[in-house]
């Protein structure tokens, strides 16, 4: 709901960088850039940078690590249900299938989206954003900006399965009847979620809009 839009300062795109201004990402104060090794926000004392330091390199490493861990997260069992009669290992996908077979398809779809689609989408989206930022591509900037905001917004929802598993494991721990043991897949999955969350934070979305080579720090 855009009820008012701020006016640009001049006609050609004047950026914080071209005007020698920095914005504090913590308190949003606009600060004039001065020479100095470690600039800090005069209001909240947060470190100030024209762009987040080592943003591309750091984010690339995190995304690669997350992509690698995504494999064990989906292949290894996330939980092991032991009863008198059988011993059943569930991966994330087979957990979704069990839910689907037992008729609770809305929950099955929810888990499928949160645990399988969202992490994959996040890794792919961050990959696209990183690649286009490395190349400083001028194309589809607004869409890429929107993509990044989506990654930021949906990221936390992949924690859903971790919480469900931890509750199941805590509740179903009756020695005489059944027990649910957490598998290493859950650990790998948790690592994927945390790594992508951190990656979304280390990525500087302003890099999407920095196209000209001389714009680089």
């Amino acid at each position, binding site marked *: 709901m855009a009820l008012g839009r701020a006016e640009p300062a001049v006609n050609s795109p004047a950026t914080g960088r071209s005007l020698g201004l920095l914005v504090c990402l913590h308190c949003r104060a606009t600060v004039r850039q001065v020479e100095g090794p470690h600039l800090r926000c005069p*209001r909240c004392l947060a470190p100030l940078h024209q762009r987040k330091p080592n943003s591309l390199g750091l984010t690339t490493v995190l995304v690669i690590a997350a992509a690698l861990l995504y494999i064990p997260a989906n292949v290894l069992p996330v939980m092991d249900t032991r009863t008198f009669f059988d011993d059943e290992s569930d991966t994330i996908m087979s957990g979704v299938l069990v839910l689907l077979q037992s008729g609770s398809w809305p929950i099955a779809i929810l888990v499928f989206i949160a645990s399988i689609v969202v992490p994959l989408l996040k890794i792919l989206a961050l990959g696209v954003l990183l690649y286009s930022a490395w190349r400083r591509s001028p194309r589809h900037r607004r869409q890429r900006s929107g993509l990044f905001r989506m990654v930021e917004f949906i990221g936390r929802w992949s924690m859903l399965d971790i919480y469900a598993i931890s509750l*199941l*494991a805590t509740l179903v721990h009756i020695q*005489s009847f059944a027990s649910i043991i957490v598998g290493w897949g859950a650990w790998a999955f948790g690592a994927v979620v945390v790594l992508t969350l951190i990656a979304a934070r280390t990525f500087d979305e302003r890099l999407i809009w920095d196209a000209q080579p001389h714009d680089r720090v």
Partner: protein
Amino acid sequence: MDGVSVGADRRNDPSTEVRCGVHSVIVCPACDLAHRRGAVPARGRTLCLRCHATLQRSERAGVDTAIALAVCALVLLFLSNAYPLVAMHINGQTRETTLPGAALGLYAQGYVTLAALVFLTTVAAPLAQVSALLYLLIPLWRKRRAPGHGVLIRLVTRVRAWSFVEVFMLGALVALVRLAKFSHIVPGVAIWSCALLMICLAALTSVASPQQLWRWAEQSRQ
């Protein structure tokens, strides 16, 4: 005002707040486009022309609203942690768990990192967020600033990013549906307070944003 180098006397400068920032310009934090600063809108928000990120929000809520929400969140947080989330009746046995119990269950099975992750995101982060906010807001209500104001606002922003109560809520729902297949499930007090906490935290987050906290701070004495 100009950015300061570390080592400059920034802490003890009483005029910092007055001179803080280049007030005529808003730089978009998402695409670096500079905008001339207009008045804060009465309703809705101001968007960046280029990337449509939110630049300003209307600030109708006062400190009182924020305090009320924070107190409410603190009470709900207590209920969510002290009372059982669900009870499960099976074969004449009853098992129940609380919210911290979910993290403890993982710890008991030897998954220390996962347990820590669950504990941080569902118990520690919301608690730190709400108590730090209360610590900041109560002095602000009396037009004063709490010691360590700046550091704590930054802490609140950091911690807020890791508080996943709403996700936990849905996760608990998924767990309940799974268990309901082979046992009798009784939802506890905590599941209701958790649902309310989720709403309360969302409202608190939008009312007591860092920008808003700084605005209130600038209206108060040192």
